[in-house]
């Protein structure tokens, strides 16, 4: 969080400067109230608003990179902060009726802030839509950051199960087949041993990007465990899934991985297996998801065996 905030140091300094200027000007123009004149209930309410505004401002900066949306939202919040800050200052400091300072600062920034926030939110919505499009093959319409894998940014096996069960239910009702594709890097253990875990992790994340590029829009890619990936393929028959599997194998085989930024490339093969959920919706099974995954895993183990035999 601190690292992210450091990128926004100039913005934070600016808002601090504005707030101190505001306090100084108000102090210069007015005089402090007596203790008995102070209304503590008002202070609690208005102070809470100021405090929350500051928290939101910091959360906003800590969670977003630079950009137009961040700037709009930041200035919107800042206006809120200044207006409600003035409201709070009025509780401590009495200003002569003739000054328009307090009145102006209390009322002008508020509508400006509203306007900036609204424009900001509109752009934020568009930005989110652009991001959703990019993340489509990673999350398929549901977002749960707790289930994200740190290395590949993909969802984990738990998320796969929930998505697969939703998908299967929908597909069976519509009479469509659903396929699951398992993909596993050959001899990944040796890659980790030879190049170290950091490089192994990097290979995983680069292969993730490569696989994502080669999937169709409706597919969902998850990291199953270790070096095994699972791909949910809605409305896909066995033949189609096998074709995609073959394409992925080809693509991965030709991917030049450069370890530790060295010039020489390394090539890795992957094994794949496909299992398809049939059309028979009349059969009531309790653990369709488990059975489908089990079948795919079993076929993958067989495919690995065949590959080992071929190499030997």
């Amino acid at each position, binding site marked *: 969080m601190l690292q992210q905030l450091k990128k926004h140091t100039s913005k934070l300094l600016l808002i601090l400067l504005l707030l101190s200027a505001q306090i100084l000007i108000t102090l210069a123009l007015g005089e402090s109230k007596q203790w008995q004149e102070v209304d503590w209930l008002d202070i609690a309410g208005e102070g809470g608003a100021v405090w929350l505004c500051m928290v939101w401002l910091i959360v906003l900066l800590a969670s977003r990179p630079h950009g137009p949306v961040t700037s709009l939202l930041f200035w919107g919040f800042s206006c809120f902060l200044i207006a409600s800050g003035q409201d709070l200052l009025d509780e401590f400091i009495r200003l002569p009726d003739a000054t328009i300072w307090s009145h102006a600062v209390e009322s002008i920034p508020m509508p400006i802030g509203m306007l900036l926030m609204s424009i900001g939110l509109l752009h934020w919505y568009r930005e989110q839509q652009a991001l959703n499009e990019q993340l489509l093959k990673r999350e398929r319409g549901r977002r749960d950051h707790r289930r994200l894998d*740190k290395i590949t940014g993909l969802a984990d*096996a738990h998320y796969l199960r929930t998505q697969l069960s939703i998908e299967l239910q929908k597909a069976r009702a519509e009479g469509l087949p659903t396929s699951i594709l398992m993909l596993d890097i050959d001899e990944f*253990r040796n890659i980790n041993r030879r190049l170290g875990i950091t490089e192994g992790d990097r290979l995983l994340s680069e292969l993730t990007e490569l696989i994502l590029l080669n999937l169709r829009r409706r597919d969902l890619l998850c990291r199953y*465990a*270790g070096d095994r990936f699972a791909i949910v393929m809605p409305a896909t028959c066995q033949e189609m899934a096998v074709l995609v599997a073959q394409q992925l194998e080809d693509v991965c085989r030709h991917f030049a991985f450069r370890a530790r930024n060295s010039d020489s490339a390394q090539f890795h093969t992957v094994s794949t297996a496909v299992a398809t959920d049939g059309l028979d919706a009349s059969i009531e099974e309790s653990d369709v998801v488990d059975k489908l995954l089990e079948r795919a*895993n079993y076929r993958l183990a067989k495919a690995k065996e065949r590959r080992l035999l071929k190499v030997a």
Partner: protein
Amino acid sequence: MHKLYHALAERRFLAQENLLGLLELAQSRGVHPDKLLKGSSIFSEDIEDASTMLSAQQLLAIFKNAKRSFGADDGSFLLGQYLLPGNHPQFASAILASPTLLDLIEFLQKFGFLSQPLIEFKSVYDDQNLYLQLLPVDIDDYANDFLIESISSAFFSFSRWLGVDTSSWFCLHAFKEPKYQEQFLVHYGLRPKFASHINAIIIPRASLSEQLPRGSRARFDLACKLCKQKNLPEKSSRSLSLWVYQSLQDELSQAPGLEELAERLELSPASFKRHLKVEGGSYQTILDSVRRHMAIYYLHAGQLSTEEIAQKLNYHDKHNFKRSFRRWTGINPSLYLASS
């Protein structure tokens, strides 16, 4: 007389050698070493000193920290990729040349301590299977799950690398099923049976003496000879708990009592108890562990009646045995195999 055991708290292991894999893993995952070493009274500065020695107790504590600090579910399995063949030169060259699986297992029993100081490899046979038991040196089957997971996955993947077909193996884990069951499927190649109250790998006897494609009898024998020259097989147990476990297991039908064991060590019963307590156990918990493990073997072998098992384990009658078994596992002996 040679020493019968090393205390668990005796600092006998080079820190750098034994923490190499764990520290590299921590580095690549952005975990600060101090987080791993918390509570072990060792600091990361100490480890930079190549001569720092650690006790098995400290190493066990560090492995328990590892479970918490890695955050991701695959830490133990990734570590497993480093454990075998490991960094000990003679040990590694021997197991890399294992001519058969049986040679590998017998070698692990004799010289496993060179590379895995925290696990005692034990084996028990029945008619069909070999049970390779992974016994942590503090005799705690339940709390060392990170360690057990990493060594099991190391053994599975190393065996497959040697060309063994592991598809007919089984795996028993004492601890409860964690949420990350997929990790086991991918790294072990099978789904272990959890809450089994023992940590063991079950291997069909038929596959033990098959010739392995990468093995070489000559190279294996040579490496074994070198191993024996440089490191005598340990005559003393690696912890007091393990010594007590072994003594009780050897004479289970007439298990020696606490006083008798204390006498063999030339200790007073009070200090014997105190030494055991330092290692986190007691005479009774270790006796329970031995009996529990043996009971589970007999149940798996499926040839003895409950009555006969009770007799073998030195119980007066089967009711006492059944009651104890329920206390250890929460279920009746007759239901143990059917459960989960």
